[in-house]
């Protein structure tokens, strides 16, 4: 009957090719037996429908031939996949972000935020796709990582992960200095900013003036995070992630500042990173140039220090995540021990 053949054809779509014909022959034989057992040599369509309904929907019947389930990445590989994906995404996205900010800080071109963001986002999907593809192949090849040693000894378990306590004195000092600096910047801004009225002074800085709201925001975020840390008393995953995000924001602001200073200095004919004695003159203009070069140098130093601190935070974050049995197990699976 055509309905039976249509039913079997549909089941066959979801069966493994090498077993398809054999399984379908058996199911056909069983359906014929069932109809025959109901004393029906020429069944009506309704009777066939009833028998097929009893056997189940085609997808369900086909799926029951896969007792271990059908997965792109199965439950055994999935935790390992998650771990690898996190590392790869952090490394590739973080690397692109830092490289983008650094190249921008050293360039003299206008900042194209959308393009920078797009370049970072553009790399995320291919990265995820590649990792998924590799694990799908491993799944297809039926590779099972060894998650447990055969002779499990509980005494070899890693010690309990304790949150790293913060240095309260350091944080209080940081909050006080940050608040004072923010207050100073705000006061200067209220009093007319860094551009002096009625002439050029060594403190005249149009770049700081321009980016003042961003500098203030970056400082405020830092102070807020320090207050939260003081309140919590120790580092946690959430505060580490927040600190990394805040540092990345600071890096962007620092990059804007250094690039702004470079553009300004180039416009008045001071090229290169070093301010030579020949370029100095005791005139107000010379003093302002000295001030601008000094500011730029300070921002470069801050950029490098913040970059190192951010990398250290990322490493601590990964090590924190890894300070559990899972990383140890994954490491074992990776090294094959």
């Amino acid at each position, binding site marked *: 009957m055509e309905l039976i053949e249509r039913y079997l054809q549909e089941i066959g779509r979801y069966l493994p090719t090498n077993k398809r014909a054999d399984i379908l*022959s*058996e199911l056909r034989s*069983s359906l014929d037996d*069932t109809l025959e057992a109901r004393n029906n040599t020429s069944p009506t369509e309704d009777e066939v429908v009833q028998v097929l309904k009893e056997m189940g929907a085609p997808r369900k019947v086909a799926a029951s031939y896969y*007792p271990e389930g059908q997965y792109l990445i199965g439950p055994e590989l999935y935790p390992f996949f998650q771990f690898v994906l996190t590392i790869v995404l952090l490394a590739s996205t973080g690397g692109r972000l830092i490289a983008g900010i650094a190249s921008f800080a050293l360039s003299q071109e206008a900042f194209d935020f959308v393009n920078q963001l797009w370049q970072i986002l553009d790399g995320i999907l291919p990265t995820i796709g590649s990792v998924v593809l590799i694990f799908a192949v491993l799944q297809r090849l039926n590779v099972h990582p060894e998650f447990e040693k055969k002779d499990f000894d509980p005494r070899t378990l890693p010690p309990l992960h304790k949150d790293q306590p913060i240095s309260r004195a350091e944080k209080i000092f940081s909050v006080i200095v940050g608040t004072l600096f923010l207050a100073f910047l705000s006061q200067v801004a209220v009093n007319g900013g860094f551009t002096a009225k009625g002439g050029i002074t060594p403190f005249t800085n149009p770049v700081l003036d321009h980016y003042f709201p961003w500098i203030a925001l970056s400082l405020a975020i830092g102070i807020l995070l320090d207050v939260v840390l003081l309140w919590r008393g120790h580092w946690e995953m959430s505060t580490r992630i927040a600190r990394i995000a805040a540092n990345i924001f600071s890096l962007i602001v620092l990059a804007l500042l250094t690039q702004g200073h470079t553009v300004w200095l180039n416009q008045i004919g001071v090229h290169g990173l070093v301010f030579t004695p020949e370029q100095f003159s005791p005139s107000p203009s010379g003093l302002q140039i000295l001030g601008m070069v000094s500011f730029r140098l300070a921002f470069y130093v801050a950029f490098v220090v913040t970059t190192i601190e951010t990398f250290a935070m990322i490493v601590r974050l990964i090590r924190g995540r890894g300070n559990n049995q899972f990383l140890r197990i994954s490491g074992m699976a990776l090294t094959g021990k």
Partner: protein
Amino acid sequence: MQSMVKTEGQVTITENVIQELRRGILILAILSQLNEEKYGYALISQLGELGLEIDQGTLYPLLRRLESQGLLDSNWNVEGSRPRRYYVINIAGSAILKDLAREWRSLTQVIEKLLANTK
């Protein structure tokens, strides 16, 4: 007062738990009836007559799995009214059946004791 009528969710949970309980038992039931060659529908009928209902969608994949685990042998027989695949327990299957039967008897005794005070 709490209603004695089961909700749809409770019915689903009950069905799932019963299905899980039956899953392991079905292997024992199938192995016990395959000391001589039988095709799928005949096995379903025999188990049904003895009081154990099993649907075709469950039986055939399970027979395949037991065969791939090396507990059953099978062959196509084309002599009857239609070609049929016949299954029979092999030596490895018989050894497993003995172990399973012993475990089952031990478990039923324990479970009966545990359920003695259950209404």
